[in-house]
C-alpha cells in the first residue's frame, strides 16, 4: 500500500475524490484517505465511456472485501476514457491512488466548477475533522 500523500497539483472533493484538471479535461480518482478507509480494493467496474457525470453525484462503486463505497464526481462532464487496468487489478487503487489507480477521464462541461474544490491545506483540515 502507498504512503499517505496528497499531491499539490490535485483538487479535492469532500467525499474523498480528487481531480487533476488539465484545461478542458480532468482525471478523477479516490484519495489516499479513501482507499485507506476502504482497505484493499477487490472490485471496481468502470462506467461506460460517453456517460455523463454530475458534480457531487456517484458515478461508480469501489468495493473492498467488507464494504462498498460510492465514488463521487468532483466535477461535471462526459467520460472520455476509463481505466480498464483497474478493473483487472483493483489493488492499483491502493498501490497508486493518484497514478496507475486513476478511474476516469472526463471532458468537463464547466471547468469553472473546479474553483469550488479544495486545495491540499483545506483537504487536510477536512481530514483532521473526520
Amino acid at each position, binding site marked *: *500500500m502507498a504512503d499517505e500523500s496528497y499531491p499539490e497539483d490535485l483538487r479535492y472533493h469532500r467525499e474523498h475524490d480528487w481531480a487533476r484538471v488539465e484545461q478542458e479535461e480532468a482525471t478523477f480518482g479516490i484519495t489516499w484517505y479513501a482507499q485507506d478507509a476502504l*482497505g484493499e480494493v*477487490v*472490485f471496481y*467496474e468502470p462506467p461506460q465511456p460517453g456517460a455523463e457525470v454530475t458534480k457531487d453525484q456517484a458515478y461508480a462503486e469501489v468495493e*473492498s*472485501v*467488507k464494504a*462498498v463505497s460510492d465514488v463521487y464526481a468532483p466535477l461535471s462532464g462526459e467520460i472520455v476514457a476509463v481505466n480498464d487496468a483497474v478493473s483487472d487489478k483493483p489493488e492499483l487503487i491502493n498501490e497508486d491512488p493518484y497514478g496507475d489507480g486513476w478511474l476516469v477521464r472526463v471532458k468537463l462541461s464547466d471547468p469553472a466548477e473546479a474553483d469550488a474544490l479544495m486545495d491540499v491545506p483545506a483537504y487536510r483540515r477536512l481530514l483532521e475533522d473526520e
Partner: protein
Amino acid sequence: MATTALKRTPLYQEHAKAGAKLVPFAGWEMPVSYEGVRQEHIAVRTTCGAFDVSHMGEIETSGPQACDLLQNLLSNDVSKIEVGGAQYSVLCQDDGGILDDLFTYRIDAESYLTVTNAANHEGDYTWFADHSQGFDAEVTDAIDRYAMLAVQGPQARGIVGDLAVADLPKRMRTERLEVAGSDALVCGTGYTGEDGVELLLAPDGAAAVWTALLDAGAVPAGLGARDTLRLEVCFHLYGNDMDTSRNPIEAGLGWCCKEDTGFIGAEAVAAARERGTEQKLAPFLLTSRGIPRPGNRVLEGDDQVGVVTSGTLSPCLEAGIGMAYVTAELADPGTEVEIDVRGKRRTARIESKPLYRKET
C-alpha cells in the same frame, strides 16, 4: 450501544502494536485486519493464521445434572459427548427459531463449557440460567475467565505443538496442556475449514501466548479473513445466515438436531423436518463479475425467489460467493439464478457445500 464503551480483549495492545485496523463488533473493539484480509486469508489456507476470538463468550454448566440440563437446551445429543470431547449444536426457542449456534466441550464428568457468539452471550446465559430450575446443575457466566485464540491452517498444529508440553488433542477433542507457559484448554476445533486448534486460557496469560505464536510464524488474522474463510466452506454466521426467524432445518443445520432428545424446540424442528420448509439456505457462486452482499435479492426471471444472507469475494475461488435463502425447489446444486447486486443483475449458480475444497 452508542453510549456504551466498547469492550477490549486482553490482546488489545498487541493488536494496536501490530497496526491492526480495529472496528466495533458486537460491542467489542476487534481487529478486522492487519496487513490485509486477502493475505491473512491465504496465510490460513497455506500456512498458519492466529485469530483473537476473545470476544466470544463462555458458559460453564456443572453439577450432577449438567448433561440433562444441556440436553434440554442444545439441539444435538449432549449425552454423546465423552469427557474431552466437543460438539456443535444450535440453541432453539420453543418455535424452533435459532437463538445461537455453539460449540460445547465436556471438561470432565460433570462439567461442560459452551462457547457463545459475542452478540448473543448475555441472552444465551440468561436463557441457560432461566431454564436451569429443576435441574441439579449450576450455570456460570465464564466470559471473564477466558481469552480465546484460534490457530488455524496446515501448519497450525506444528506451531502450537512445538509450544506445548504434550501432544495436541485430535480433531473434535480437547486436552488441558501448558502452551507457551500458560495453562490452556486446547480444542481441536475451528471455523475456517482448515486443520488447527483453539485455545481457551486465562486472560492474563494470553498476550504471552499470542506473541509466542507470532514469533513461531503464525500470521495475525482478523475478523475479515475469519468471515471469508468460513463462507468459503459454508459455515454459518449467526445474525446473517440464521436468527430467531429461521429454524435449523431451513438453515441446513438439521444434521446437528436430534429431536428425540426432547430439547426445547424439538417438536417444531421435527415438524419442519417432516413437512419440509418453504425456503432453504443454499450456497451459490457468481458466474459473472461482482460481489454479492447480504440483502441482495435472488431472482429467477423477474420473480424474487430468495435473499442473500452472506456474500463476499472469495480469495481462493476469485469469484463472488455467498449463501442465500431460496425457494426450496431452487436450492439444488446446478440451478441458475440471478442476484440483484445494487441494481445490476449478476448470473449465479447454486452450488453444493463446501464452495471451496482443498486440493488433495
